[in-house]
């Protein structure tokens, strides 16, 4: 049994002197635990397998930083498309807002890598090697002997091994598996940078999952801190039905009488006095013992709660044994716990949904506008324009990038220019090798007699295989046309 009961006034995992109270939450069994385990292993499988599954010519996800190309599920984006990240990020933001307003912290309890790896990988290793929660607490308190040392060394070695595996998979997302394998099979000296990256990442993961654990959720993660702004009385939370549970019964486990419980707001004042009515809660503290952040859910909604549902399964188990209806701790809204109805349709959810839909529509348009070729046209470094004996000359630098795995043929042309413009560099069809970048020069010359000042025109790259055009506006510049007229100088010179 852990020391003091959790209080709303302080964090369970941090002692009064600032030292860490290392938790050993008990295991749970039940439908939510099972469902959560299935989801977690599915997510881990997705994480591990994405670099292995080829879609088209590339892995399903391959963020080729060195080649500045990002392959996502058979789709290739180049560095020029970084602006799309805006839609990806805002989309994720709106989705998170919407889901939080509706379902509370399902992300934290079900899908966050911190929870997924901690509860379903690292904690399992701990249970495997050191036994259940009471056994682990006993081992913590035991003096260091050979047996304890052996278990601890084995545990931390396994922790680091798993951390290294996770870090290697992470690297595979950026360098792809063949390259990763090549690096694994050669000496670290051949690729110090990446070796150090993986080593440090493994170390950080190890530190996080072996020791830091719930501190990340409670102290570091901003999402938990934003909860009070994101949810309202009708958002789904994991909570305790105080109306049904209070006043607590003198439990079989010899729990103290309800009056000894410090600051539970769940204890209605008239109810403490009334002995006649008895609630369903037997104050067995099962919900506290299984909590990975060490709170007492019966004290109401708290920032530390990850909505991991461990206490639901723990309480349902006890209620079933007591032949009482389950659901004393359950998924419900604060309104629902107060006896009201949960309103799913409300201004907040509608607004978040509307933002999400608008964002998704714009994102769809933006992503659809991405073409398999990137095209850039700029003035060549050097002079802004040149004066030849017979013409005004502008020089443009054209950069074409083929983002696909096939050869593409592109034709350049200039449109919208006044008659008389002489062109060179646009005659031949350009063949772009797969994933290649190609530089071209386009020289525009306007004979002096026809030059009537600067004008706008368009450089057009037509993809002959894709049937689309990429257009860049440009401006032809030169001196004031008056300066080019010979009589202008003749008139000025006599003065």
């Amino acid at each position, binding site marked *: 049994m852990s020391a003091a009961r959790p*209080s*709303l*006034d*302080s964090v369970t995992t*941090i002692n*009064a*002197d*600032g*030292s*860490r109270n290392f938790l050993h939450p008990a295991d749970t069994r039940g439908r939510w635990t099972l469902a959560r385990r299935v989801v977690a292993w599915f997510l881990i499988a997705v994480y591990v397998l994405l670099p292995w599954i080829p879609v088209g010519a590339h892995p399903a996800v391959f963020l080729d930083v060195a080649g500045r190309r990002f392959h996502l599920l058979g789709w290739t984006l180049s560095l020029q498309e970084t602006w799309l990240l805006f839609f990806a990020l805002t989309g994720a933001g709106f989705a998170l807002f919407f889901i939080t307003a509706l379902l509370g912290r399902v992300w934290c309890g079900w899908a966050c890598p911190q929870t997924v790896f901690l509860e379903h990988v690292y904690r399992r290793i701990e249970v495997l090697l050191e036994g259940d929660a009471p056994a682990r607490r006993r081992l913590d308190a035991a003096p260091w002997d050979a047996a304890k040392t052996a278990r601890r060394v084995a545990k931390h070695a396994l922790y680091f091994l798993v951390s290294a595996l996770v870090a290697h998979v992470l690297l595979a997302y950026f360098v792809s598996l063949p390259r990763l394998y090549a690096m694994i099979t050669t000496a670290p000296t051949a690729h110090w940078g990446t070796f150090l990256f993986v080593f440090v990442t493994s170390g950080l993961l190890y530190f996080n999952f072996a020791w*830091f654990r719930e*501190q990340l959720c409670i*102290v570091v993660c901003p999402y938990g801190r934003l909860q*009070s702004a994101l*949810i*309202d*009385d009708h958002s789904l939370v994991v909570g305790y039905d105080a109306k049904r549970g209070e006043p607590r019964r003198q439990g079989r486990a010899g729990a103290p009488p309800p009056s000894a419980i*410090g*600051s*539970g*707001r*769940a*204890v209605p*004042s008239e109810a403490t006095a009334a002995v006649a009515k008895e609630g369903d809660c037997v104050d067995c503290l099962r919900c506290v013992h299984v909590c990975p952040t060490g709170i007492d859910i019966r*004290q*109401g*909604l*708290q*920032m530390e709660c990850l909505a991991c549902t461990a206490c639901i399964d723990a309480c349902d188990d006890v209620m079933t044994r007591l032949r009482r209806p389950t659901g004393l701790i359950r998924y419900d809204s*604060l309104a629902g716990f107060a006896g009201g109805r949960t309103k799913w349709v409300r201004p907040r959810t509608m607004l978040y949904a509307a933002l999400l839909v608008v964002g998704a529509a714009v994102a769809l348009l933006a992503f659809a506008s991405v073409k398999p070729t990137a095209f850039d046209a700029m003035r*060549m*470094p*050097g*002079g802004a324009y*040149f004066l*030849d004996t017979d013409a005004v*000359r502008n*020089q443009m*630098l054209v950069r074409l990038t083929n983002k696909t795995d096939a050869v593409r043929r592109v034709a350049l042309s200039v449109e919208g220019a006044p008659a008389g413009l*002489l*062109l*060179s*560099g646009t005659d*031949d069809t*350009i063949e772009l090798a797969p994933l290649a970048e*190609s*530089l*071209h*020069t*386009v*020289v525009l*010359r306007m004979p002096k007699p026809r030059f009537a000042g600067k004008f706008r025109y368009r450089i057009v790259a037509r993809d002959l295989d894709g049937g689309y055009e990429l257009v860049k506006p440009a401006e032809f510049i030169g001196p004031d046309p008056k300066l080019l007229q010979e009589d202008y100088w003749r008139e000025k010179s006599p003065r």
Partner: protein
Amino acid sequence: MSPEPSGQPPHEDNLRPHTYDGIQEYDKRLPNWWLLTLYGAIAFAVAFWFVHYEASVVLPDGERVTQELNRVEAVKLAAMVDKLNDPYLWQASRNSAIVANGAATYKSVCQACHAPSLRGKAEDPKYIGANLADNAWLHGGQPTEIFKLVREGYLPRGMPPRGGQPLSDTAVLEAVAFVLSHHREGEPIVVEPPPAQ
């Protein structure tokens, strides 16, 4: 949303003296690991400042960058001096792989001014580049002189450095080799100096 404590706070808790909008604050000790990051960061800042700016243990950033750039430049130069002489360029101009690369670069970068035939304005007035196919050269006709001209350009006549594109030295060398492949070693060279500016 979070429940207000039902009773008065436990008396052993220190309360800060201030009250804002009826809200008071506990005075709790921060987690030790958190304090460690704070004090660690302060200690690191002091140590870093001392090592980096006060003690002459390491060079200032600017000097280190210059030093590193000089080193890179020296390595490049050494590699070039080894290779770059007239016989080497002639040899490169007879290497089909180098010439093929050079032809591709010529096609995308140089051709717009010097014409596909290399004859430049002699081919058609719409081309503005000098004739590279005849024996007359404006800036010297030795291979290294041509390489230097392509690399540095001659802006008064509109020839931008490296043809105005971010070409590597290798790409410039290949393009020069391609041009030289249209010439023979030992052929007569006529140099027409550029008009005085």
